[in-house]
């Protein structure tokens, strides 16, 4: 029996200004089970950060309740909440001379005494957190001298030092380069797997989310949150329904976004080498062509023979030595 770590009951999130309440979403009724990596996705301004803030107790819900491990969050003291939920936010501390270990040590403050004196156990936890996030080499460094990816890891180490069953992260991959994004997702997966953490993170990196999260909370203004396996969301067409625009559509087969095919003619790709074939198709799609492999509905076709690209169009045959020449010809001609 899996245990619900976070439970939202008739939760209405939003903000109050001039005593007027503005709800962002319909009532939410959701559960988040233990030891899962859950991604929160949705367009800008839909309320991802507001939901994370509401769950963590930084913001009061307009209506309804959040339950943490079966207890209503509003009944929990700040100190108790600090030992249940840790946060990693988008804006990181930027104080001069603030060192990596200062920030991670702050994660122990919910456990430390009035003077914030660190015990041997605290130091052990801090060291372990640095090891788990792979940042022991960053000890003694100032936070402002680190890269965005390193700083993100320091904040995650702080969350680990806080020793909470739940970690909430607001767009942890936002400012990272691609390899760092993947590395960070792997780290989160490890924490879920090895330490049984329950992790909820918001993200705009859809392909990353689909590849690495256990569940996805898909957030939309009209429908609230759809909670399902990432694969199920794709197959049920939810991803298309939420993210497609007139110029961009999510390719459910490939798992990425591509431009909606233009009026340009359909081409047939007959290159047999799979690697070459894939990247030629990639280039053609990028230029706005629709590319088929087998269908007969095509107006020109490309093959690769004797180290040359062969282009057949209305009986005319032309040869190109490089992909760039072929592309130039096609974009000028068609």
């Amino acid at each position: 029996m899996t245990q619900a770590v976070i439970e939202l009951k008739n939760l209405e999130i939003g903000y109050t200004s001039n005593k007027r309440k503005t709800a962002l979403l319909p009532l939410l009724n959701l559960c988040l089970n233990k030891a899962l990596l859950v991604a929160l996705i949705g367009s800008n301004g839909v309320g991802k950060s507001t939901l994370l803030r509401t769950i963590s107790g930084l913001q009061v819900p307009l209506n309804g309740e959040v339950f943490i491990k079966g207890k209503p969050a509003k009944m929990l003291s700040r100190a108790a909440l600090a030992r249940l939920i840790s946060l990693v936010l988008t804006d990181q501390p930027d104080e001069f001379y603030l060192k990596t270990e200062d920030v991670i040590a702050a994660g122990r403050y919910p456990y430390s005494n009035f003077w914030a004196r660190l015990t041997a156990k605290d130091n052990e936890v801090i060291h372990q957190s640095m090891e788990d996030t792979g940042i022991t080499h960053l000890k003694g460094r100032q936070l402002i001298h680190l890269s965005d990816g390193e700083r993100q890891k320091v904040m995650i180490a702080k969350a680990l030092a806080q020793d909470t069953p739940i970690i909430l992260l607001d767009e942890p991959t936002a400012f990272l380069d691609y390899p760092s994004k993947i590395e960070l997702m792997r780290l989160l997966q490890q924490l879920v797997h090895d330490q049984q953490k329950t992790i909820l993170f918001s993200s705009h990196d859809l392909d990353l989310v689909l590849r690495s999260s256990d569940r996805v909370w898909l957030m939309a203004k009209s429908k609230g949150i759809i909670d399902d396996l990432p694969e199920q969301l794709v197959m049920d067409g939810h991803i298309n329904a939420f993210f497609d625009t007139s110029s961009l559509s999510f390719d459910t087969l490939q798992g990425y976004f591509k431009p909606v095919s233009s009026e340009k003619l359909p081409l047939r790709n007959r290159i047999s080498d799979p690697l070459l074939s894939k990247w030629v198709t990639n280039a053609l799609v990028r230029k706005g062509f629709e590319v088929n492999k087998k269908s007969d509905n095509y107006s020109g076709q490309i093959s690769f023979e004797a180290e040359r690209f062969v282009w057949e169009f209305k009986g005319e045959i032309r040869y190109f030595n490089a992909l760039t020449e072929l592309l130039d010809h096609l974009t000028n001609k068609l």
Partner: protein
Amino acid sequence: MRGLTPYKSGAWKIYLLSLAALVLLLFMNLVFGSVPITLSELWTVLSGREGGSPSTFMIIHQFRIPQSITAVFAGAGLAVAGLMMQTLFKNPLADPSILGISSGASLGVALLLMATGQISGHALIHFGWARHIGVIASAALGSLLVLTLITMLSKRLSGMTSLLIAGIMIAYFTSAIVGIIKYFSQKEDLQAFVIWGMGSFSNVGQQQLLFFSLVNGMLLAVSFLFIKPLNLLLLGDRYAENLGLNTKLYQRWILVIAGLLTAAVTAYAGPIAFIGLAVPHLARNMTKSADHRILLPSSVIMGASLALFCNLIARLPGFDGSLPINSITSLIGAPFVIAIIWKRQRFYSETK
């Protein structure tokens, strides 16, 4: 796990060094001045032995000791208030006067000058010792009034930035009123006000020294109770809140303590610029730390030392009397602040 506790991080070397500097400066303040006193004379007076000249005894007990102790507490108080303000507002250029608390003191003194002039028809300068107490009381009253206003505002305004703007506006507002009062003041009062505005460590007489030291010492001791909240606030309000801190409540308390420190110092010594701004930066630069467990004690020591140093410069042998302390702190503090900004700018152009 070395290096994780501040006491193992080498900060003690800085403590030792700055403590030595403090003691040295204290001695220099007792020895140097318009009347030079030799070390043996000083020793005779301090040890209470017979044989010293009565005038030396008087100079040391009535002037130099009160002045030095005032400088120590004023410097320490302003430095700690500045450190708290900088952390509170996450602004490296915040200082104790930023919320208009010292302008409140100016307003109090200005009002007193005008009131005595209007009511009695005499300039305040003719009132002797009553004038002295009056200035201290009205400065304290004025700054506490502004502090109360700011504290009330902090309950209503949601962000610290809004509060900062409100504070700066209050400072402008009170300065404007002070300007109007000055325009209608008598010449002698105006001069007295200008001199008060230059700041001085010699306003605390022997009789008030104990009270002044007690108030400031107590406030300094209380400020040490806020080390943990200050460290948490350094991470940002939301991180602090998530780590279990009642952010709004502690921000208000820190505001009150920093405000009281500023009020206590300003009431006795007048508005003293730059110590509160520069010393926290000096402490950060020297200790290479952002941890308030290190910064708070070092700000106390370095604030006291800097005030003593400025006082020494103001009374350099060769000058008749002493230079206005506010000019000295500004002369030393302003280039220092520029150096900090320069250093930061260099850092940003190197990394971005």
